[in-house]
């Protein structure tokens, strides 16, 4: 078999498609969001707001990371640290007989966006679990059991302009002797024994700033359940340039980790494209894939080398 045979086999694979029903259901949810979008244009991040968004992140990074070179004098004085402020913001859990719903503000999205985690706490292993939220339905396979104190899926970046108070989650599952069970939890009255620790790593060079966020969620002891710690969860690397001239549209990057033995391990290489405004401060999101992300949290230092227009700079991202 030669290479062309392999390619031919791959291109001959059946074209799997969404069923009409699935298409309809998915579109219905998108349509709901589009309707909501039409009534909340004020929260969209417009091109003009990009600099402010970047500034919020920059100041946050400056406060948390202690980097001496931040140009904070150029930033609005009213901008506070989003990340420290939000630790005291809405974060909590709704506790039922067999399920817990943990709610935390989304660390990725500015505005009323929330992350939800669903945790099974029933004594009998659950099978055929279905979780119905206002925006989606999550299914587990019928023949797999979910042990007690196990996280079952979650939802990220749910837009709730009124807060999570009206968000309700219904769980369906099969319990002992296949008895059909269900429980609905409302997030209207959250127990506040949950803590969210969001930290941001930061670094900089002459023309570049870099931030990198992660969070961990922990809860107090409830019943037989031990202290829970989730995370760290990684939310990606965001870069900003402070170049005097227009931002380059294409920058080569290489991300390297320091290994305990002193050697470097290249995590990712590629090209960045500006996602911010076409002025002298653009944002870039570094595309670190799954393999890379699993490597980063335990490592003390990350190096990012950037090359553009024949120039090169290296940033070191150190844990605060």
């Amino acid at each position, binding site marked *: *078999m*030669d*290479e062309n*045979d*392999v390619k031919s*086999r*791959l*291109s001959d*694979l059946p*074209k*799997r*498609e*969404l069923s009409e029903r*699935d*298409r309809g259901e*998915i579109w219905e*949810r*998108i349509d709901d*969001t*589009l309707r909501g*979008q*039409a009534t909340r244009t004020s929260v*969209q*991040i*417009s*091109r003009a707001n*990009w600099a402010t968004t970047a500034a919020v992140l920059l100041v946050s990074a400056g406060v948390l990371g202690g980097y001496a070179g931040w140009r904070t004098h150029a930033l609005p004085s009213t901008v506070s640290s989003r990340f420290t402020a939000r630790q005291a913001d809405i974060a909590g859990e709704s506790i039922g007989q067999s399920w817990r719903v943990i709610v935390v503000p989304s660390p990725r*999205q500015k505005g009323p966006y929330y992350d939800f985690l669903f945790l099974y706490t029933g004594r009998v292993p659950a099978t055929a679990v279905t979780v119905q939220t206002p925006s*989606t339905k999550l*299914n*587990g*396979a019928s023949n*797999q*059991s*979910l*042990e007690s104190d*196990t*996280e*079952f*899926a*979650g939802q*990220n*970046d749910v*837009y709730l302009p009124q807060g999570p108070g009206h968000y309700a989650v219904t769980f369906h599952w099969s319990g002992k002797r296949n008895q059909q069970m269900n429980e609905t939890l409302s997030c209207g009255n959250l127990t506040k024994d949950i803590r969210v620790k969001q930290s941001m790593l930061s670094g900089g060079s002459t023309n570049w700033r870099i931030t990198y966020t992660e969070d961990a969620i922990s809860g107090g002891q409830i019943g037989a359940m031990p202290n829970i710690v989730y995370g760290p*969860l*990684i939310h990606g690397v965001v870069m900003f340039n402070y170049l005097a001239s227009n931002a380059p549209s294409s920058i080569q990057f290489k991300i390297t980790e320091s290994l305990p033995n002193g050697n470097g391990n290249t995590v990712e*290489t*590629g*090209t*960045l*494209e*500006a*996602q911010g405004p*076409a002025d002298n401060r653009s944002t870039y999101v570094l*595309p670190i*894939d*799954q*393999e890379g*992300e*699993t490597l980063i949290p335990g490592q003390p230092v990350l190096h990012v080398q950037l090359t553009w227009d024949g120039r090169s700079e290296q940033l070191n991202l150190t844990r605060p």
Partner: protein
Amino acid sequence: MEEHLNIREVTERLFALYADDIYRYALYMLHDADDAKDAVQEVFLRVVKSYAKFRSESSLKTWLWSITRNCIADAGRRRSRQRRLPHFYSKESKSSGDPAVAFVEMEELIHALPPRQKQVAILRLIQDLSTTETARILNWSEGKVRSTLHRAVTTLRAQIARTTD
């Protein structure tokens, strides 16, 4: 895509054109039909949320596929977060004599590829995207796309040879 289209029109068009392609890609990457459907939904919700940030330097198609790639990575990350969560695959059965078995086996071989090779093989050979488009979506050089694709095809050849021995 015209600049003056509003977000609804853009989303409708993208959904009509690419929902199935994204579903197929998600299915290969996540190996779970329900996760793949969730991924399609998530991709288009992100389109709605982030269209204001879209810059016309890249094509809408490349932008959409970049979002797709990120969504799939997030879905993978959620899985790794669910450390104690059992796998909830809804694999199709492989009954003997079923003419679809060869296809299913081929899909299993693709799924077994290392993540980067899998991404490239799906985008280039199944979704039929060009090397340039694939490079832009993955933020790689075209050379890296070509070399990774070559490795993927070599791996698949070896696997196919092993299964047919």
